[in-house]
């Protein structure tokens, strides 16, 4: 459980099709959110092969990209999110007690 549970994290994961990296990234993200943000997050997966016009809006270049839209400011994490520590740093999430 996070220390400030008041805020809900709105996360967007940009992927391109069902590649290995996409699937890994989504799985990693879900696990990470359950561990650290249970009940305080929403995940939106955007497949750019279906909606290529959405890539420019969030300045997507590398895939997969995770975008933290809320809380502000905007944060981006790229990669398959296998490095949990770096994802937490990137999303500015303090790990729950006992795990750090």
């Amino acid at each position, binding site marked *: 459980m996070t220390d400030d549970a008041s805020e809900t994290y709105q996360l967007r994961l940009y992927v391109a099709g069902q590649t290995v990296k996409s699937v890994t990234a989504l799985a990693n993200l879900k696990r990470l959110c359950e561990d650290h943000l249970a009940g305080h997050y929403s995940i939106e997966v955007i497949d750019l092969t279906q909606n290529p016009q959405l890539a420019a809006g969030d300045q997507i270049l590398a895939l997969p990209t995770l975008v933290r839209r809320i809380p502000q400011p905007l944060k981006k994490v790229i990669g*398959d999110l296998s490095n949990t520590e770096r994802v937490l740093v990137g999303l500015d999430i303090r790990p729950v007690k006992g795990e750090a």
Partner: protein
Amino acid sequence: MNAYATRPELNGPQLPKTPTGIPGFDEITLGGLPRGRPTLLCGAAGCGKTLFAMTFLIEGATGFDEPGVFMSFEEAAPDLAANVASLGYDVPDLVERKKLAIDHVRIERSEIEEAGDYDLEGLFVRLGYAIDQIGAKRVVLDTIESLFSGLANEGVLRAELRRLFAWLKNKGVTAIITAERGEGQLTRHGLEEYVSDCVVLLDNRVQEQIVTRRLRVVKYRGSAHGTNEYPFLIDNHGINVLPITSAGLSYDVSQEPVPTGVSGLDAMLSTGGYFRGSSVLISGGAGTGKTIFSATFADSVCQRGERCLYFAFEESPHQIVRNVRSVGIDLQRHLDRELLHFEAARPSFYGFEMHLTRMNRLLDQFRPQAVVIDPISAFRGPSPEIHAALLRMVDMLKTRGITAVFTTLAPSEDRLMTYADRAVSSLMDTWISLHHIESNGERNRGLYVLKSRGMNNSNQIREYTLADDGVHLREMYLGPSGMLTGSARVAQEAQERAQAYQRDQQTARRRRELERKRRAMERQIAEMQAELDAEEAELHALDEQERENERSREDARAEMAASRGAVK
């Protein structure tokens, strides 16, 4: 714009090419960039890479119906549009009509965390989407190297770039990838390793405080291309490359004379003027009236309704117009009718190459029949460069059949030629030398035709004066100590006038004398006539008397007879 698109003299199968629409560049590359392949455009900051790339897209969209995608890694779309708006390109309109798509890729390292394996598929998706949206045939990536500062994993980046260029080729789009010039290699991040079909290098060099932009096609796989460094120009008309290498000696020549504007000078040249399309050098010291001769020529050209382009390198157009008005030449009316065009610039403002490029473009735009370059001696710099530049200038004018008058400042004291003169003398068809003649404590102006190819020219030195109504060549007087000029000539003229006056006087006197004599004679005749008349009258009177006497005597006799009583 697409005049250079094809070169008919090229034989054999040629690599398909995409014209850039940049004047001169398509000529150097014999048609443009390799169609459907990426081209690397490298150069240091401020070389004009972005403008080159943008021109390529806009010309493609407007001139060749090939829509283009501009993917900018540096400038945002509004900035790009604003930058080229001054060149008359309406980017928002092209975007509106789906002829152009601009995608600004912004990458901020500070807001990106890398956590695990990734690729640049997002870039591919964006580019692919933009290409498909407008059916793009041309793509620009400016400057993709920015990614190196935005992403930490260089290994992934390099692999992805390699994939990107292959993908572009696969898409069949003609692409320009711009890159920063690097130390020891063409580009900072070695992009030439991936883009190897065509590499163009832009350069911005300062030599003797003068900047010249140059362009070189470093490589062009599968095609011949001009290998030299070509000067190019960026100004308010966009990019212009000057492709002068092959100016051969094969231009047509004309027999048609072009009057010089000075009637006496026309007479000195047996043809009645310069040949059309010839190059004329007017050399002279300070204050010999070189500009006035040029202006007179320009005036006569415009009076015939032809166009004249006047390159002024030392005076402003207004100054020239004002100054030559003092000798009765009104250039303003030609300016008003747009037959005359002044192009004034300090020689040091650009390099030679830049001057040539500007000149080349102006000649194409204004299409003059005559050109004045006043003066060429204003060009300073390494002599071989001056010579090369002048050679090109003369070639440029001759191939167009333009009559050109060059002026040059020559030291008046000794008539030694300056280097520029020597270098240029062999290029000139006609050379008119103006100089000061010093004698009797004054300086006067004299001219002679030093050479004039293809015509019989006078070998006389003629004095000329710059009067209120233009240039006048004077009759030459030869005195015991040589040529008479100035006041000596005036004195000679005065003396001749005095002699003539004296002769007139003498004649008049003799005429008066004769008249008097005749009158005297007539009077004598009248007197004698009167004498004769008097004598005649006297004789007549005597006669009368005699007859009277006779009658008296007869009467007396009759009376006596009567008194004697004699009766008949």
